[in-house]
């Protein structure tokens, strides 16, 4: 098993401290989900991991070798970025066809047949200029390039952002098919957590420029609970745990608990329910806002 490791990564844009000392370890052969609020530094982190953006300090290595300007490492990775419909010269006039030809030259494991298949599936007109594509079609192109790159480590930054529900379902299915067949590593950032959560074997939550969580998704959710009931009983039952996002309605209270390990003996007078990844993330973020 290979490992992509980011160690003590710091990234400042001028005075703006975006990433504050990030340690991250991507094991190959897994699907990772990267979640975090807008502006938390997800794209910055992904571009640093793939050496498209230098870190202020810290180091990224693949199997122990620094990835920066290291062709051997970079050949194993694909970071398919969102296409821009405009360039500094105006509308992006590059045709889809030409764009794909560049990708083919760039990625050494490029699978042309697969790319053609995907172009048909997403109904893309290859003769169209990139600047004339809809938001959904632009997303589809980044997905096509990511999949057809056949890169060992493939990174998709908000791939479903512009896609309609049918195309999103298609995308999740494609990822699973490709993963089941090849065992390629995927790192996928998304805001549509609810739909994608069950795809992720591991989840990374960025918060305030740091890695708040890096864990197997099932293990994480197995120690998260929504606890509700009479306010005083809920307080008593949860006093030993990390509690997020308390809400009160009359005498009732509901909190999200993230324990260090699964708990089986909550006070039987409170309601104990599981928490979805989206709701856990929401509760954790709400907490942060309150403290600020």
């Amino acid at each position, binding site marked *: 098993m290979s490992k992509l490791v980011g160690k003590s990564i710091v990234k400042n844009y001028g005075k703006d401290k975006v990433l504050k000392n990030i340690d991250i370890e991507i094991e190959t052969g897994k699907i990772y989900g990267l979640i975090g609020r807008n502006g938390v530094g997800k794209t910055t982190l992904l571009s640093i991991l793939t050496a498209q953006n230098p870190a202020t300090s810290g180091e990224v290595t693949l199997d122990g070798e620094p990835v920066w300007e290291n062709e051997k490492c970079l050949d194993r990775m694909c970071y398919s970025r969102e296409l821009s419909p405009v360039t500094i010269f105006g509308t992006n006039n590059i045709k889809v066809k030409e764009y794909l030809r560049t990708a083919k030259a760039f990625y050494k494991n490029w699978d042309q047949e697969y790319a053609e298949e995907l172009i048909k599936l997403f109904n893309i007109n290859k003769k169209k200029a990139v600047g004339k594509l809809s938001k959904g079609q632009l997303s589809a192109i980044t997905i096509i390039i990511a999949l057809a790159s056949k890169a060992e480590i493939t990174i998709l930054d908000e791939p479903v952002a512009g896609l309609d529900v049918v195309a999103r379902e298609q995308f999740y299915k494609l990822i*699973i098919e490709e993963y089941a067949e090849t065992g390629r590593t995927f790192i996928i950032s998304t805001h549509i957590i609810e739909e994608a959560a*069950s*795809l992720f074997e591991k989840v990374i939550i960025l918060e305030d420029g740091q890695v708040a969580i890096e864990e197997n998704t*099932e293990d994480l959710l197995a120690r998260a609970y929504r606890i509700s009931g009479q306010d005083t009983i809920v307080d008593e039952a949860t006093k030993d745990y990390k509690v997020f996002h308390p809400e009160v309605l009359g005498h009732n209270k509901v909190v999200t608990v993230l324990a260090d390990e699964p708990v089986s003996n909550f006070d039987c007078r409170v309601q104990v329910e599981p928490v979805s990844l989206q709701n856990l993330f929401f509760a954790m973020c709400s907490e942060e806002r309150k403290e600020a």
Partner: protein
Amino acid sequence: MLENLGEDKSIYIQISEMIEDEILRDILKEEEKVPSTTELSKFYKINPATAAKGINLLVDRDILYKKRGIGMFVQDGAKERIRESRRNSFYETYVKKIIGEAELIGISKEELKKMIDTEK
């Protein structure tokens, strides 16, 4: 087995319970092949590792067994084993809940028993 996955339980547990239900209802018969982890993960759009975890849970309990290079099959005697383990948890999962609700709304144990007796 085509019901929606809910959020009330871990996905792998739901996968294993769905397969159990199929066996209980004779939709999946003993010695019959069950869907592969890839098929399950594609259908439910879940990580193949999660689907495999659900399947392995059943292998550990002698409900399914692996035929090398062919797939997972329902073990001989699986249905009876499932029935037994569900019988053991029946009180905790169902009866306790009914008694609790009955108490809350003032249905006596006698009335409850009568309801069960008259139910055909």
